[in-house]
């Protein structure tokens, strides 16, 4: 009896999690005509890959994929680099108030990302630089005429930088937390043994700690990648040029004012999910352990 209940529950859970994606995939195989039949068909009558071709011809979807890949990978690399440096310092080095620093870093993840929208937009559009502009204005007034009176930030809208910079910051708290708790698990004796054997501190870090921390780095990297791949609001606001859109933003382009070409949209979404599904299939256990490191300690 209990066995049946658990089986049934598991089945429900699988249907709940996978049905929307499966339905989307089935939709992407149907023709636009078949989608507007009543009663609706569940399995495609004439399965066709036409929609997948149309996705790439209707909009520069390959470009969206490239943009997403560049932005997400760059943000992931930088984020993991910064986070592992910080995580090592917080886990290993004798430093006053390191617990407070970790708490402060984690607390920034409670900070609503929406609030960044307006200030970062102003900064990226080419606004005055907070400290430099007044300083230069002052120096100019003192007679340093060769200096520019106003210092403006470069216009970063519609560049990769406009997304990479905030994405690094968005994933930094969680990755720092994951890597700090991971470094704490590596026995300190290994490192001191290497130092006794004549390795310098940096050498020990490079030869002993780095190889051992690879699993933690992979975990943090996956989470940073998923975060960056999925981000929508900042990408929508900062990169408005068609050729600079990421996949989530690009897909909203297919959606007209009144018409929803569902066959196209579902094909595009299916392509956009593929990297994430691959990550889930290969790194299931890593992702769960990474999320839980954040959950249990935070």
């Amino acid at each position, binding site marked *: 009896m209990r066995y049946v209940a*658990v*089986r049934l529950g*598991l*089945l429900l*859970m*699988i*249907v709940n*999690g*996978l049905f*929307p*994606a499966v*339905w*989307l995939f089935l939709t992407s195989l149907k023709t636009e005509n078949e*989608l*507007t*039949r*009543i009663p*609706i068909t569940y399995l495609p009558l004439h399965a066709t890959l036409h929609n997948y071709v149309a996705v790439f011809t209707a909009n520069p979807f390959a470009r969206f994929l490239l943009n997403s890949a560049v932005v997400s990978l760059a943000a992931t690399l930088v984020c993991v680099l910064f*986070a592992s440096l*910080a995580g090592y*310092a*917080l886990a290993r*080095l*004798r*430093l006053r108030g390191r617990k407070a620093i970790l708490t402060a870093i984690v607390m920034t993840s*409670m*900070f*609503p*990302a929406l*609030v*960044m*929208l*307006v*200030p970062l937009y102003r900064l990226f559009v080419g606004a005055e630089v907070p400290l430099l502009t007044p300083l230069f204005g002052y120096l100019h007034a003192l007679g340093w005429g060769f200096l520019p009176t106003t210092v403006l930030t470069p216009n970063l809208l519609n560049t990769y930088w406009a997304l990479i*910079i905030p994405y*690094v*910051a*968005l994933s*930094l708290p969680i990755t720092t937390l994951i890597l700090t708790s991971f470094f704490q698990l590596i026995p300190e004796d290994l490192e001191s043994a290497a130092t006794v054997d004549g390795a*310098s*501190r940096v050498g020990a870090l490079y030869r002993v700690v780095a190889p051992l921390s690879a699993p933690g780095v992979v975990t943090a990297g996956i989470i940073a990648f998923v975060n960056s791949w*999925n981000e*929508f609001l900042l990408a929508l*606001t900062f990169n408005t040029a068609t050729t600079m859109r990421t*996949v989530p*933003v690009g897909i909203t382009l297919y*959606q007209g004012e009144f018409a*929803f070409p569902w066959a196209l*949209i*579902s094909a595009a*979404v299916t392509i956009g999910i593929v990297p*994430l*599904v691959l*990550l*889930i*299939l290969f790194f299931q256990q890593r992702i769960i352990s990474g*999320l*839980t490191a954040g*959950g*249990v300690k935070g």
Partner: protein
Amino acid sequence: MARTVPTLPYRKPGFWRRLRTGNLSDGQLAVLLLLPALLTLAAVMLYPMLTVLWQSLHFNRLNQPFRGTPFIGLDNFRRMLWGDGLQWNASHLLWLRLVGLAALAPLAWAVRRRWLSRFAGVVLALALVLVFGYLLGFHPGAGGRWTDSRFWNSFSITMLIIVASVAGSFLVGLPLALLANVESRLRWLGRVALLLPWAMPRVFAGLTFAWLFQSQYGVINDVLRRIGLDGPLWLARVGPAIAAVNITIVWKTSSFVGLILLAGLQSIDASLYEAAVVDGANAWQRFWRITLPLLRPSIAVALIFRTLTAIQTFDIPFAMTRGGPGRSLETLGVYIYNSTLALNIGYAAALSVVLFLISLAITIFYLRWIYTE
């Protein structure tokens, strides 16, 4: 004759030399390693937080540069609450406001004399403010000043989504976590099903469910039709649209709650259950007496993160209905985006400040709750 070797005074190697040879002190190395992360966070998180406060006190419309960016105090916030047309009349119902203020004084006094706990004092003061605010006309509905305030609408829909989706994702996430923890041959597939909604971009989830909820050709209405029910026009009517968006949010976020709770479940010592079985406790008792109490920290973490993301709800209503029908699903996030899109930067900044204050209040509330437990 003794040859004297000139002894050089010991000179500590300089900073860069010690850096190259890897001989920095712990503190120096730590500062060096922490610097990139802290600088990034300061530039992207701290700097916006401070400027947004400053911006919210200014008039700033990027499409009207000739008007400049004058300092206008709290006018953006006034516009939020009162709307553009209504001006606050200083003598309006003055006696009622004075009575309200006068009622606060004995309350403060009672708290000071320890007749009331501070908590009770705050709650009573809030209640007073609400009652007098209502009498003064600060309420939605007929005769209220907030009848057609766009801010009030987005504020209330955001609050509704917070309550409904946090409760919903917890009620769905807990069984998901329990099921994912059971040994079974299908467990890996169950875990994939648990991870997929988490990994799926919120926009994709919104688009997918917009298709599922499509009134004519969507699968949900088709199933309802087969049962013999008449499904509503999900995304074209206010009530059903709110329900549909909440269901989508719950689907998307319950997997995150489930994952956090799964971690909590895995950290519970199995011997506790064995001991309980020996003592003759049934499954229900084991769940209430062992699982739930020990799961408390994980539940708190899940609830905090869920609430803080629910405040920022933007992607799913935007993808499903663009905040419609009308403005019924214009959450605070969508409102901020729309104001930014309308290049009304000062007003968007003021809205962001409100959003920040709400999430700050909720964080403090949760933290107090955790620390008192």
